[in-house]
């Protein structure tokens, strides 16, 4: 990809995308969990409390973005991928959860389940969020923030970004939209309702909320940046589960996306690591043949991608995952990982299409390798097409060369 002859005067350099910004946008754009049938647009929300079972409903409207892409035929309505929302509500809490939050079980009104986390709502507007590696509680003394002229209020923004508020009395419907730079309504966002509370699982920087009440609609604007900082509004502590902390953190963040392949996070162990760098990759495995590849961005664990789960079938090496990143239009990185037959394989060398050779790291039957200075991602068919893997035995002799398609 050739570059323009000149650049704009004073054009600022590109910045690395901070992981929390990436994650926030990713949740907003990609959502989490399996794609479900979209709920009816602007569906009324209601909470039913019958026989102790609390049912929460979510609203998710249709998008209203006006776009004029250069090559179009007709507009096609498609389900939005934004799908992180309340998945379960249970009365009270388990003794363990209540204890971790410092609540008495009888104080807890209900426990709200979201992908990868649980939020306990206790009496007197006390809240607590539990993830795989963190526990955070709100500080009631930090106060609440009026919304819709004081008819509603914002009570807490949990550590994972879930925003909790109290609706005006008699609310029958809640709609949440995100404003684009102009401030105009752009896209409806999921909002869930549990009893007198509303929850916004994915917060945008600026949002508009409209409550439908018996006396008419009440609206308000939510500016995330105007809310208290996390350290003002919350007290948090990390609770590391047994095992490797990078693996735990990676799975914690991954489970918040609602993935269905993690299972018991305590079974996962670290495997091969691609080495230091802005973008590094850690292979992890569940000790039962399933692998995943954890992105370590600027030294911090981010989310993991599942590997192909097909059987090894006697192969010495099996590529189970690959990924490419093209921050700079002129170059890219390609990473790949997989599994090896540990009895027969002592090492791997990856040779890219340009002839660059990189040794792969092997740990506990997993391998991962990162290749820098790759051609732009769009300049070839297939990220790893033409790559070769030289399989070495334990005596460092080449026993097989595999060419990737």
């Amino acid at each position, binding site marked *: 990809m050739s570059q323009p002859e000149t650049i704009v005067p004073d054009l600022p350099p*590109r910045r690395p995308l901070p992981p929390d910004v990436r994650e926030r946008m990713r949740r907003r754009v990609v959502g989490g969990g399996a794609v479900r049938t979209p709920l009816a647009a602007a569906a009324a929300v209601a909470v039913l409390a019958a026989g102790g079972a609390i049912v929460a409903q979510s609203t998710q409207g249709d998008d209203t973005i006006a776009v004029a892409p250069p090559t179009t035929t007709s507009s096609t309505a498609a389900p939005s*991928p934004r799908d992180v929302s309340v998945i379960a509500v249970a009365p009270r809490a388990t003794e363990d959860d209540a204890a971790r939050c410092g609540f008495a079980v009888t104080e807890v009104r209900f426990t709200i389940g979201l992908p990868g986390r649980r939020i306990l709502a206790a009496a007197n507007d006390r809240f607590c969020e539990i993830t795989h590696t963190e526990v955070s509680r709100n500080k009631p003394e930090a106060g609440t923030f009026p919304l819709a002229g004081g008819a509603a209020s914002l009570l807490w923004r949990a550590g994972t970004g879930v925003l909790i508020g109290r609706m005006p009395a008699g609310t029958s419907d809640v709609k949440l939209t995100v404003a684009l730079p102009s401030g105009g309504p752009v896209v409806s966002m999921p909002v869930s309702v549990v009893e007198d509370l509303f929850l916004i699982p994915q917060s945008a920087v600026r949002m508009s909320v409209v409550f439908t009440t018996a006396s008419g609609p009440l609206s308000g604007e939510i500016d995330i940046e105007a809310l208290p900082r996390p350290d003002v509004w919350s007290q948090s502590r990390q609770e590391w589960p047994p095992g490797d902390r990078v693996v735990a953190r990676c799975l914690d963040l991954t489970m918040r996306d609602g993935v269905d392949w993690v299972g018991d996070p305590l079974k996962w162990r670290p495997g091969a690591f691609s080495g230091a760098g802005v973008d590094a990759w850690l292979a992890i495995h569940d000790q039962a043949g399933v692998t995943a590849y954890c992105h370590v961005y600027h030294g911090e664990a981010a989310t993991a991608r599942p590997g192909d789960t097909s059987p090894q079938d006697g192969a010495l090496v099996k590529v189970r995952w690959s990924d490419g990143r093209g921050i700079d239009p002129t170059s890219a990185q390609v990473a790949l990982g997989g599994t090896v037959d540990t009895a027969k394989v002592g090492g791997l060398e990856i040779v890219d299409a340009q002839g660059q050779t990189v040794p792969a790291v092997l740990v506990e039957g997993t391998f991962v390798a990162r290749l820098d200075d790759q051609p732009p991602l769009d300049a070839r068919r*297939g990220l790893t097409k033409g790559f070769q893997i030289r399989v070495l035995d334990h005596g460092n002799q080449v026993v097989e060369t595999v060419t990737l398609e």
Partner: protein
Amino acid sequence: MPDTDAELWARGDKASFAALFDRHAEAVWNHAYRLTASWSLAEDLTSATFLAAWRRRSDITLVRDSALPWLYTVAGNLARTEFRRLGRFRRALRRVPDDDVVPDHAERVIAAVDDDRALRRVLDVVGSLPKAEREAVELCLLGELSTAEAAQVLGVAEVSVRSRISRARARLRAVEER
């Protein structure tokens, strides 16, 4: 296993779209900043761009198998459409005092820089360019796409893009020399 943008795009499923997001989010976010001079606005604009991409994925023919030119075009269209419709976007940019950078979330995460003032000055000029020049500038100068890619995504000859950029460059240089 992820492959080219075109293959992911054609697949059209959520996992493929997530892979496209992971691949291009940083580039689109930076481009959105160059269109808005605000990291907060860039975050919203980036999200909106990908959401629009998801909605229109079945309508789009990718240029050179890369989603990036089209994503840049969508980001530009979104900013411009909103700007045309309400005019608030431009006012929001002007409202930011030159000596008081808006303290947005991203700027708390990464070190604050003083690029915003110069970028707002450039955007003022870019916003006043004729549409054809503005589109070429956004894709080639702000987005750093090649003129060939811009030509394809804009549906014009490459020589036209070069000519538009040449005219726009003169105006931008004039701004720089003030």
